[in-house]
C-alpha cells in the first residue's frame, strides 16, 4: 500500500491547521479534522497493531465505530486504552501507542506465535493448561493476553457530568434518514433531540454521492441542521447512544472536542427513531486480515472526508452494488482500479477508468506485513498495494435488539432487519434496509407520520440513487487457507468448524467457545459472517442459527461517565455533626460510625489513641463529661392513635408511659429479632419522640411509616423525622447537675422536678431546649436538645462552665467503655441476626403482654423457646490480664473436639475498675453466672468467668448520686 494525501479536497480537514502527534514513537503529521486513523493512512503507516492471539500484523479496516483492528492506547490527560483510531480525533501533541505489540506494531516480538497457529485453535488454552492446574499457567498467559495497557498512574482531570433529559422525539443518527426524521418530527411541533457519533452531522452524505431538493447533499445537511437549531431542538454531535434500557431510557455518551471528560446523558424520550445506518462486512478469502485490506466504504470516506488516497494499484472486491461508486471515485482520484465482482450479471454500470472482472472472487491476499497482491479463485494473480472489500451491509440494529426487538431475516438484503415493531421505537433508513435516498426519505416520513401532522415537506432525492443488489458471499466450510472472521479475537473459519465438530452449534455456545464477537468491537463486522458460516456447516438457514443477545454498550463507554461525581468522598457521603468544626478545633480525631463522622476521641497525639480514650473514660466517672450525641435518632410520632401505635411498634408496653416521662425499649423485626433499642419520650397524650440508634434512623423511620400506612392509616398517626433539626449535647457524671445549674434554662433541675427518665422543657438564649434525664453511661446524665444551628454557643457555654468542675469532652470510644462497664448493649454489636429480646434478659413483655406487637408470634416458636439459646452475659478475667479479644469463642470440649458455645461481643480495659470488662453471647449464659469458661482466639485458650452483664454500680445508685 502506498497511501498518500491528495493536494486538494477533504471536507472534514482544515489544511490551515496542521497538527503533529506521535504513534509508537514516530511523528505523524495531519490536519485538524483528521482522526488518528486518517492521519496514519495519509502517512502510509500500514501496520497499526497486532492481533489478540496470534500477534498478526493488522492495519486499519474501517472509518468508524466498527473498527476491529486499529486500537491504540492514547496517553495524556484523556488517557484511554484500546481507543479506536478511526473515531479518535487526532490532536496536536497526542501520544498514541499500538496495542498488543512489544516494542511496537511493526516489530512485535510475539509475532512468532503466528507460526504455531495451527497448534493454537479455539479453546486451546482451556484444554491444554487444565492439568495439573490452570492457576499454574494463568499468570503467564494473562501477561500475554489482553490488548491495551491501563495507565495506573492516571488520575482524572475532572468529573464527568451526568444529565437527565427528556424530549418528545430522540433521533439516533444524523445521516439522511435521521436528519429527515428529525426535520419532519420538528414540523409536527414536537421537541426533538438528534444525536450522532460523528463530529459532524450528515452520516453517509459526508462521502456518498447524492443530491437533495435540488442541492448538493452537504448543503441540504447544513440547512437542515440550521433549521433544527433555530427551532430550539438539541443536536449533539460526537455523542453515542450506547444503550436502550427498561421503559425506553436511552444512555448517551458525549465526547467533547475541548478535552473535558465525557458527559453521560440519561434521556427519556416519548418516541425513539433509530437511524443508525449500516456497517460494511468483509469478504472471506485467505489472509483477509493483511494490512492494506480495507472496507471499501471506509476508503471512500477517507478519500472524500480526509483527501487520503489509500493506494495506487487497488483491487476492489465485492458482491454488491455499493462498491461501484467507490471504485469509480478512486479511479477518478488517480488510482489504477480493478473491480472484482462475484456476480456475472445484474450489476450497475462499470465506472469510467475501472477494469471489471466479473464472476470471480478473491481466493487469497498475498504479502507479509502488508498486502502485495491477490489471487483470484481461477488462480489469476493481480498485483495490488491495497485491497478494498465490500461483503454487503449489516444494518446497525443493536439498540433495537437491546429493546428486545425481534429481527427478521431478509434474503434480498442478506441481512437481519428489524422485525415486529417495539412500542415507542421506529427504525428508519439503512438500519431498516433502505438503500436509495428516495426509499430512505419515504421510510422516515412513514415513521414520523404517526407522531402527528407535519408542516415540513418530505425531502426529495434529486441526485444519483444507490441500488442494493447483492449476492450473498458467506465464509464456506472447507475453504483453503486461513480466513479471518473476527479480526480482533483472531477467530478463523477453522475455529468455527472446530466448534461445530465439538457440537458447540448454538450461536451462544459458538460465541463463548471461539470468542467470536466478544472483543471490544463486539463483532460489528464479524457476527453475521460467523453465524452464516455455522449455518452452512450445520445445514441450517441463517435465521435458524439466529443471533446472540444484544446488550449495552454499543461501543465502550468510560467508567468515569457512569460514576460521574459519585467518586471519592461522594461515593458514600458521610453525615456530619453540626459542631464538627468546633470538635476539630478541640483536637478531635474523627471516625465514621454507622454513616456518621463523629469524634472518636479528643487529643491523644501524645498519649496515643488508647491513652486518650482511657483518660476520657476515667475522667467521665470522676467528675463530669461532655458528649455530642446529636446523631441520636429523634423521630416524632403524633396523632390520635399514637399510643396504640407505639404499643404495636415496641416490644415493651409504652402506652402506660406518663407525659413528660421516658422509657427504654426494644423494637423487634417480625421474625422476633431485636432490631433497635432506645428511649421513647412521651411529650403529651398524643405525641412521642422515638429516639433510636444513630445508624438506624432511616431504617426505623421507614418501618414506622410502613406500619403507619399499612395498619393504622394516615389520619391515625403522623411521623416526622427531626433527627437533623436538633443537636443533642450530653452532660454526664457525678457533677452533671452542678455544672448545669450554673446555666439558666428556666427550669428546675431538682430531682423532685426532673427525676431520672423524665424530661423538662426550658430555654437557652431564647431558644427552646428539651432536657432528658436518660443515661447511656450509668451516671447521672442530661441530654439537652436544641436547634442544630444554635448548638454552638450552648456547647461553648457548657465547656466554659465545665472548667470549674474539671469537665472532659469525650468521644465515642470512651462512651463505648462506659456503657460496656454498665452492660448496656449496642444492637448489631452485642446482638446478631438471631438475638431475641429474652436472650438479653428482657423476658417480661413476652410473658405478660396481651396486646399485639411486631414480632410477637416469632417469640413463641420452638426455636425461640430452646433451652440452649445464646444469652447476654458479662465475662471477667483476673486483674492484670489483657482484655479478651472481641469475637473470641467460648468453647466446650467433648469427644476430643472443640465446640463453640458463644462469643465475646464487646471487650475493653476499664480504667475505673482497673480490669478488663467484656460482654458476650453465651449458651445458657443467664443461668451460669460464676461459672468458668474457656475462651479461644486464634488457637490460644484463656479462662474467663461468666458474670452479670453489669460490671459497675449494679445497684444503679450513681444515676441519682
Amino acid at each position: 500500500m502506498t497511501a498518500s494525501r491528495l493536494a486538494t479536497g477533504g471536507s472534514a480537514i482544515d489544511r490551515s491547521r496542521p497538527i503533529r502527534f506521535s504513534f509508537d514513537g514516530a511523528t505523524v503529521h495531519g490536519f485538524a479534522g483528521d482522526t488518528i486513523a486518517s492521519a496514519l493512512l495519509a502517512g502510509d503507516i500500514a501496520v497499526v497493531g497486532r492481533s489478540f492471539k496470534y500477534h498478526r500484523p493488522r492495519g486499519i479496516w474501517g472509518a468508524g465505530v466498527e473498527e476491529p483492528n486499529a486500537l491504540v492506547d492514547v496517553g495524556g490527560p484523556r488517557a484511554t486504552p484500546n481507543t479506536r483510531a478511526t473515531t479518535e480525533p487526532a490532536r496536536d501533541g497526542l501520544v498514541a501507542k499500538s496495542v498488543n505489540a512489544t516494542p511496537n506494531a511493526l516489530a512485535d516480538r510475539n509475532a512468532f506465535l503466528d507460526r504455531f497457529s495451527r497448534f493454537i485453535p479455539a479453546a486451546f488454552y482451556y484444554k491444554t493448561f487444565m492439568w495439573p492446574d490452570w492457576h499454574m499457567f494463568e499468570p503467564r498467559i494473562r501477561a500475554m493476553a489482553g490488548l491495551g495497557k491501563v495507565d495506573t498512574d492516571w488520575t482524572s482531570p475532572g468529573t464527568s457530568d451526568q444529565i437527565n433529559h427528556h424530549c418528545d422525539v430522540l433521533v439516533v443518527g444524523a445521516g439522511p434518514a435521521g436528519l429527515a426524521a428529525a426535520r419532519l418530527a420538528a414540523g409536527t411541533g414536537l421537541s426533538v433531540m438528534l444525536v450522532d457519533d460523528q463530529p459532524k452531522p450528515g452520516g453517509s452524505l459526508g462521502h456518498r454521492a447524492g443530491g437533495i431538493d435540488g442541492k448538493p447533499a452537504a448543503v441540504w445537511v447544513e440547512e437542515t441542521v440550521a433549521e433544527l437549531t433555530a427551532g430550539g431542538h438539541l443536536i449533539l454531535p460526537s455523542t453515542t447512544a450506547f444503550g436502550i434500557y427498561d421503559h425506553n431510557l436511552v444512555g448517551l455518551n458525549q465526547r467533547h472536542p475541548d478535552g473535558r471528560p465525557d458527559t453521560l446523558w440519561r434521556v427519556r424520550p416519548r418516541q425513539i427513531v433509530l437511524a443508525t445506518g449500516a456497517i460494511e462486512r468483509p469478504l472471506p478469502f485467505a489472509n483477509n486480515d493483511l494490512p492494506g485490506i480495507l472496507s471499501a466504504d471506509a476508503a471512500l470516506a477517507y478519500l472524500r472526508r480526509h483527501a487520503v488516497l489509500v493506494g495506487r494499484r487497488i483491487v476492489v472486491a465485492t458482491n454488491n452494488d455499493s462498491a461501484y461508486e467507490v471504485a469509480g471515485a478512486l479511479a477518478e482520484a488517480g488510482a489504477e482500479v480493478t473491480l472484482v465482482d462475484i456476480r456475472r450479471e445484474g450489476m450497475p454500470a462499470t465506472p469510467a477508468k475501472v477494469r471489471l472482472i466479473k464472476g470471480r472472487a478473491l481466493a487469497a491476499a498475498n504479502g507479509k506485513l502488508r498486502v502485495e497482491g491477490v489471487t483470484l479463485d481461477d488462480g489469476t494473480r493481480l498485483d495490488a498495494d491495497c485491497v478494498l472489500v465490500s461483503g454487503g451491509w449489516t444494518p446497525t440494529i443493536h439498540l433495537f435488539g437491546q429493546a428486545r426487538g425481534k429481527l427478521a431475516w431478509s434474503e434480498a438484503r442478506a441481512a437481519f432487519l428489524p422485525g415486529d415493531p417495539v412500542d415507542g421505537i421506529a427504525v428508519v433508513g439503512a438500519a431498516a434496509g433502505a438503500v436509495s435516498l428516495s426509499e430512505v426519505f419515504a421510510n422516515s416520513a412513514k415513521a414520523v407520520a404517526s407522531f402527528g401532522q407535519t408542516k415540513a415537506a418530505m425531502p426529495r432525492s434529486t441526485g444519483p440513487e444507490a441500488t442494493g443488489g447483492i449476492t450473498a458471499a458467506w465464509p464456506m466450510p472447507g475453504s483453503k487457507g486461513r480466513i479471518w472472521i473476527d479480526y480482533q479475537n483472531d477467530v478463523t473459519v477453522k475455529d468455527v468448524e472446530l466448534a461445530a465438530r465439538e457440537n458447540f452449534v448454538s450461536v451462544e455456545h459458538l460465541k463463548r467457545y471461539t470468542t467470536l464477537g466478544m472483543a471490544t468491537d463486539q463483532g460489528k463486522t464479524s457476527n453475521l459472517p460467523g453465524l452464516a458460516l455455522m449455518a452452512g456447516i450445520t445445514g441450517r438457514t441463517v435465521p435458524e442459527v439466529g443471533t446472540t443477545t444484544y446488550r449495552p454498550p454499543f461501543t465502550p463507554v468510560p467508567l468515569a461517565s457512569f460514576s460521574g461525581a459519585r467518586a471519592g468522598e461522594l461515593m458514600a457521603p458521610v453525615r456530619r455533626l453540626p459542631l464538627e468544626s468546633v470538635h476539630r478545633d478541640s483536637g478531635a480525631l474523627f471516625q465514621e460510625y454507622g454513616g456518621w463522622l463523629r469524634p472518636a476521641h479528643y487529643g491523644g497525639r501524645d498519649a496515643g489513641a488508647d491513652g486518650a480514650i482511657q483518660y476520657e473514660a476515667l475522667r467521665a466517672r470522676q467528675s463530669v463529661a461532655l458528649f455530642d450525641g446529636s446523631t441520636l435518632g429523634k423521630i416524632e410520632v403524633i396523632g390520635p392513635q399514637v399510643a396504640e401505635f407505639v404499643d404495636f411498634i415496641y416490644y415493651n408496653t409504652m402506652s402506660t408511659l406518663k407525659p413528660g416521662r421516658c422509657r427504654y425499649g426494644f423494637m423487634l423485626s417480625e421474625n422476633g429479632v431485636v432490631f433497635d433499642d432506645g428511649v421513647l419520650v412521651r411529650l403529651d397524650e398524643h405525641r412521642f419522640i422515638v429516639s433510636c440508634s444513630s445508624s438506624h434512623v432511616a431504617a426505623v423511620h421507614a418501618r414506622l411509616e410502613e406500619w403507619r400506612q399499612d395498619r393504622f392509616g394516615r389520619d391515625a398517626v403522623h411521623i416526622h423525622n427531626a433527627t437533623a433539626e436538633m443537636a443533642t449535647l450530653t452532660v454526664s457524671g457525678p457533677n452533671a447537675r452542678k455544672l448545669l445549674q450554673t446555666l439558666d434554662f428556666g427550669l428546675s433541675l431538682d430531682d423532685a422536678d426532673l427525676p431520672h427518665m423524665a424530661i423538662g422543657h426550658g430555654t437557652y438564649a431564647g431558644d427552646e431546649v428539651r432536657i432528658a434525664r436518660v443515661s447511656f453511661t450509668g451516671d447521672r446524665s442530661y441530654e439537652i436538645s436544641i436547634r442544630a444551628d444554635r448548638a454552638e454557643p450552648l456547647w461553648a457555654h457548657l465547656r466554659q462552665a465545665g472548667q470549674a468542675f474539671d469537665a472532659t469532652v469525650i468521644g465515642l470510644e470512651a462512651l463505648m467503655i462506659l456503657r460496656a462497664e454498665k452492660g448496656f448493649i449496642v444492637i448489631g454489636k452485642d446482638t446478631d441476626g438471631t438475638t431475641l429480646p429474652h436472650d438479653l434478659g428482657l423476658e417480661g413483655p413476652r410473658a405478660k403482654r396481651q396486646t399485639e406487637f411486631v414480632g410477637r408470634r416469632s417469640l413463641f416458636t420452638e426455636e425461640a423457646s430452646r433451652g440452649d439459646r445464646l444469652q447476654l452475659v458479662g465475662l471477667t478475667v483476673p486483674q492484670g490480664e489483657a482484655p479478651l479479644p472481641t469475637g473470641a469463642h467460648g468453647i466446650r470440649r467433648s469427644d476430643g473436639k472443640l465446640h463453640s458455645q458463644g462469643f465475646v461481643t464487646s471487650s475493653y480495659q476499664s480504667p475505673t475498675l482497673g480490669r478488663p470488662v467484656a460482654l458476650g453471647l453465651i449458651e445458657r449464659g443467664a443461668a451460669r453466672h460464676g461459672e468458668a469458661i474457656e475462651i479461644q482466639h486464634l488457637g490460644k485458650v484463656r479462662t474467663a468467668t461468666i458474670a452479670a452483664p453489669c460490671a459497675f454500680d449494679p445497684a444503679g445508685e450513681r444515676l441519682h448520686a
Partner: protein
Amino acid sequence: MQLFPCPFCGPRDETEFHYGGDAGNARPDGTQVPIDRWANYLYLRSNPKGTAREIWVHMTCGEFFVMDRDTVTHNVLSSATLGGEHVA
C-alpha cells in the same frame, strides 16, 4: 432503568423506590396463629412469572403503594395508594 408511577408524585426513576413485598400478604395477629401460617407470612413469596401485584415504597415521598406490573416484560399495568384514598 424503569419508570414507576408513584400515585402521589407521578412517574419517577426506579432508583427512588424500594420493593415492599407481595401485595395481599395479610398479617395474622396473635400468639395462636398456626406456625406454618406465620412462616408463610414471614417467608413464602409467590414470585410469579407475568402479572404481579406488589407493594412498593417511593423513598423520596415516603409513601407505600400497590403496583401491578409484569415481571417478564416489565410493563407497569397500574398503581394505587394503599388505602385507595383520593389523591390529587
